[in-house]
């Protein structure tokens, strides 16, 4: 099994979730993160003190999938979250040693 992690733009979350549903992914975990990269941040101003905020808000999406599904999942995410502008984000894939569903104790692909 693999864990596919994607860092995407926040307003793309709904599209990505739908795209994942379509390729049969029924579970995922998301969190709010801040990204630093090529995409410029913005300037903030407080009583004349200007400063640059380099971190931009991003959503991190984690999806555990069986080995065979990695490709379609990565593709689905890519397509749904791509806007073509800098800062669209990245997808990382890790190896997953083991998965357990707490409720049932099932492990492996059954637990996804």
């Amino acid at each position, binding site marked *: 099994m693999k864990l596919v992690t994607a860092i995407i*733009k926040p307003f793309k979350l709904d599209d990505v979730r739908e795209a994942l549903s379509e390729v049969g992914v029924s579970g995922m975990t998301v969190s709010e993160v801040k990204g630093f990269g090529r995409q410029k941040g*913005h300037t*903030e*101003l*407080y009583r004349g003190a200007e400063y640059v905020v380099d971190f931009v808000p991003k959503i991190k999406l984690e999806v555990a999938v069986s080995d065979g599904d990695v490709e379609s999942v990565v593709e689905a995410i890519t397509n749904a979250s791509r806007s073509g*502008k800098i800062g669209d984000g990245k997808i990382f894939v890790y190896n997953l040693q083991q998965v357990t569903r707490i409720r049932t104790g099932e492990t492996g692909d059954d637990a996804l």
Partner: protein
Amino acid sequence: MFKTLVGGMLLTLLPLVAAADELDSGDTAWMLTSSALVLFMLLPGLSLFYGGLVRSKNALSVVMQCFAIGCVASVIWFVIGYSLAFSDGGSMNWFIGGTSKAFLSGVSFDSMSGTIPESVFIIFQMTFVMITPALFVGGFAERIRFSGMLLFSILWIFAVYLPLCHWVWGGGWLSDLGLMDFAGGTVVHISAGVTALVAALVVGSRKGFPRSPMPPHNLTITVAGAGMLWFGWFGFNAGSALVSDGSAGMTMLVTHLAAACGSLAWMTVEWIKHGKPSVLGIVTGMVAGLGTVTPASGFIGPIGGVALGVAGGVVCYFATQFIKRGLKLDDSLDVFPVHGVGGAMGTLLAAVFGAAALGGVGFDRSITGQLGVQAIGVLAAVGYTALVSYVIFKIVGAITPLRVDEEEEDQGLDIVCHDERGYNF
């Protein structure tokens, strides 16, 4: 009874006649307080109410709009607004006042307006011109560009508010006709509500509307703002009596009953239709009840207050559903269905519950006769506002873009227009 009429309907004449009345320190105390209360409705009341209802990334933009409009309106009022609204316009007096009081010239420490100093009358009325345009901020929230918004508001105060205010309270044609609008059903709530609807049409829906949910980001500050509105509305309505007596007292009482009944009415409808009552529902019902009772508040008795509150809560609930779900018009914070519909309904019903038989102060005409006058007032306010604010939007839109572009809308107005963020927890 007579004093009530003076306090309410005939107040329009007070600043015009050279007031021979003596200063009453009690009336003055109440009017100083009322002025503070109405200011409080806008800052922080309405700002928090609206601020909490938008998404986090736009919270400051809405608050900033309310604040800037209030300041600009104050300056306009000082420069020429008070004069245009409340001084004699000579041959044009049916439409607009004159310029003799520009820069508040001639207003001294001793100038009187009825039993209160003219300075107090000026500041009290100033708070009305501050809050009215701030109300329609709810119509184009979350997508308007700040500079266009500000330009629009300035033109709107001149072209819509000042004439309407003069027509109704400053001795213009609706006042001559005998329109009963105690504290601003036409001047304030219809004008703001209709403008918000026009704004929704001209500026267009928010990106994602109505598919994506756009839930309020901070309902505790919205409820705080709602409580402040209720509190401040006591000054808005009971202050419109311009005296500290039984008419002010009764106005406060009916205003309060309308707020409570509007809240419960909306809550009940929501409970029945959706299965659960919500806090956003109950506070919206409160605003609906208050907006509805406003034009009638100085003319009716307790029964009228209850009736108008219930009417406001129920009718505005369905109006909101109709505009947003039915017509899919993105009047973002529902200004038209709540203020516009409520204000119009209350203006009409003033002719019913204002009748002596129903515990009101009574009027010379028959109920249907007065209802006709009220209908004329409502139609005039709706039609005039719709037309003029549409034209102003088109003019402003030709000068400067009215809304931000898509990417900016995604990023949020706080960063895009003001380089700041609401929260860093």
